[in-house]
Each structure stands twice: as C-alpha cells, then as structure tokens.
C-alpha cells in the first residue's frame, strides 16, 4: 500500500484532513520519512501545507516570528536572527538543515530537538489555530501525549546582544547527535550581576526542560567561578536524562554540570 501525499493551500483544510485516521503532518520530513523507511505502517496519508506564509520570517519591534516551515538553514542565514544562529547550525549536517523545519523540531524526541531547547530558553510562544501559547504549555501537552494541531509559527523577543548562549555536546566531530544541549538567556546588570536567567536543557528528559533551580540560584550572582557555583550544583534538580546509544542517563547527568559551568563562564 502506498502513502498518499495530500497538499493543501490553507492550514484549515490541512487540519481537517489530519483528523482522518492514519494521517500525519509532513514538515521537512526528516523524521517522518525516516520512520516510513523503517516500516512505520501507522501512516497512510501525509498532509502538507503549501501556503507560503508558513515559511515566512518577520522581525518587528524587537520580536521575531518564524514560520513553522522555515528550515534551520534559513534561520542560520537570516541576518535578523544572528543572535540564535548557533542553535540552528547545531542541527544535523548541511543537508538535514536544508530540510529540517522549526515546526518539526518542536516535536522531535530527545536526543533531537536542539532548536526547541533554544526556543524554550527564549521563552518563545507557539502559534496554533491563530493563537500564541507559551512553549512550556505546548511542551507539557506534548509530554502528556496530547496530539497537537498544526503549528504555524513560533515567536519570541530577540535576546539582548550577548545574552543568548548555546552549547551542544556530541561525541562525533564536527557534528553528531546530542549528548546534551543547553541554551541560556542571561541578562546582567551594569555591575555584571545576573538580573534574569532562563536555562533550557536538551536530552535531560524526553523533551526540552527548564532548569528552574539553576535559574533561581544564578539570580543576583556575578558570572564568576564562585557566582555560578550554586547554579551548577543545582542544575541536575528534576532531570531524568535519556539513555541511548550515544550515552547513558548516568553519563548525561554526570557531565551536565561541567558543561553548564563552561557555558556560563565562556
């Protein structure tokens, strides 16, 4: 039996087609096609949206809105998104980045989802059905196994210059699957003390999670060896890392504080 591809000009039409059994949304297809090649028999129709708006990037008044169909390559090359280009470049090799979309990354289970980790640190909102929802609520629904309507875009306040940090750790050089990834938005006052910090972790749960204990421990501290020590000590609170062929949960938990410390002091 073949897989039927259905293309729709609007999100609303695609949404209706997705309510049929055996239907799945097709973004860039890097995970969907991989599953089909491996013999996923649950899928009968692939549904895609051809509306060009889903591949738009708009920067306006300090906020960025990125269409769900925008590829990692397009994010990495966009001059208005330089601050977060490092996170887009961390996904796969060049061919994967030409295919992998922002929307698909929100659904990728660990060890994937490096860009979603960045979006979580940016406190992005996820647009479905014309409404923006906090990414934390979106990810919580994903965790609860709720099926999602089509994501049309993500948006976030562009981080102040120098405040966004990102690190992906992999064992294959130059590129490989994540042992872990960390994204952080850290705003400091003039005296160098941390005003506000958001830290997001990849591979520390099946989906990206915030390191809230570490964030709290960092507030008011200077970004020095001593200043970050409490945050580094607290980062493992609440984690439940994945185990896969790349690394065990134990290993991931052991190296997480090391990499957070390096990220904060870089």
């Amino acid at each position, binding site marked *: *039996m*073949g*897989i*039927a*591809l259905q293309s729709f000009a609007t999100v609303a039409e695609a949404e209706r087609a997705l309510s049929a059994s055996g239907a799945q949304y*097709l973004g860039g*297809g*890097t995970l969907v*096609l*991989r599953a*089909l*090649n*491996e013999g996923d028999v649950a899928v009968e129709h*692939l549904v*895609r949206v051809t509306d060009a708006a889903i591949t738009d990037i708009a920067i306006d008044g300090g906020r960025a809105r990125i269409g769900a169909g925008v590829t990692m*390559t397009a994010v990495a090359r966009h001059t208005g998104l330089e601050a977060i280009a490092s996170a887009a470049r961390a996904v*796969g*090799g*060049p*061919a*994967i980045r*030409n*295919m992998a979309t922002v929307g698909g990354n929100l659904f990728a289970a660990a060890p994937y989802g490096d860009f979603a980790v960045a979006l979580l640190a940016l406190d992005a909102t996820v647009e479905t059905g014309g409404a923006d929802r906090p990414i934390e609520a979106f990810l919580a629904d994903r965790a609860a196994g709720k099926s999602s309507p089509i994501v049309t875009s993500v948006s976030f306040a562009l981080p102040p210059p120098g405040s966004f940090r990102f690190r992906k750790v992999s064992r294959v050089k*130059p*590129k490989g699957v994540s042992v872990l990834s960390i994204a952080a938005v850290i705003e400091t006052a003039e005296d160098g003390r941390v005003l506000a910090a958001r830290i997001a972790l990849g591979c520390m749960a099946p989906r990206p999670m915030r390191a809230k204990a570490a964030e709290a421990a960092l507030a008011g501290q200077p970004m020095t060896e001593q200043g970050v020590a409490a945050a580094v000590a607290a980062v493992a609170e609440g984690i439940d890392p994945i185990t896969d062929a790349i690394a065990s949960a134990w290993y991931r938990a052991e190296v997480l504080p090391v990499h957070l410390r390096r990220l904060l002091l870089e």
Partner: protein
Amino acid sequence: MPKVPVQFTLNGEEKAEFVDSGATLLKALRDKIGDHSPKGGCHQGTCGACSVLVDGELKLSCLVLAETCQGASVTTAAGLAENGVLHPLQRAFIDGFAAQCGFCTPGMLMAAKSLLDRVPNPTRDDVVEAISGNICRCTGYEPIIQAVLTAARANSQNAA
C-alpha cells in the same frame, strides 16, 4: 500500488514518470529513471550517500518524497560532467585518491558542490562542515577534504 505522476528536470533533462505513491526521490531516481549515482546507504538520513541538489539545495533523496519534487530541478553526481569533461571536483577526487570503494563519493561530490556554489574559496573548516553529514568508511576523510580544497583552487584560477 497506486501510482502518481511526477515531472521534474534531472541534470537539465525533462523527466516525467509514474512513481509509486509515497516513493522517495532516491527510489524514483534509481529504480524508475535509472540514475544510479545517488546511493542508498542507510535510508535514515545518516550516511549522506544519497545526497542530491534540489533547486540548488543539498537534500537527502532518501528523505524526500518524489512527489514533492514536482517542477523542481534535480542535480545528481551523474550530471556533474559536461560534454565528457569531468567536473573539477571529480578530477580532484581522482587525482587525490579521494575515493576508495566509491560508495560515498557521489554524495561527497554533491555536498562539496553545494559548498563551492555558495563559497568558492572555502577554508578547511568550511569543507569539514560541508561534508559533516556524509560518512566515508574508507578514506579517513583527509584526501576528500584536500580534493575539495584543490578543486576550489582550480576553479578560482580558471575564473581569474
């Protein structure tokens, strides 16, 4: 198996075929059209042997539905030589012993071409990054990196 029509340009030639609905571009190219230059190594996106250019962008043909290439321009390693003259990348790969078993070579060539199309004078790091999605089990990568750098120099000399 239901069939769907798909029409695209392959290495400058118009192609119109009926492919199995849900067939990948890799399958359409190899099993339908008879272009065997893209290789199926893993069918998971991890080896890069199936790399082709779709409208000038490097894609993994094992993860692309043939139907989504309707109207596109597809370039494979089989289209690199012109009028019987090898592409500078192919020449450099041969001269530099950058192919042993050769299974990765068409994918490496396309990844390298995609780089040189945008960055004619790449650094070594650019080359390493450009082929980072392509696995080679034979050469240890060094001859491939050198061949791409050599081809880039040959290109820029020709242009000068």
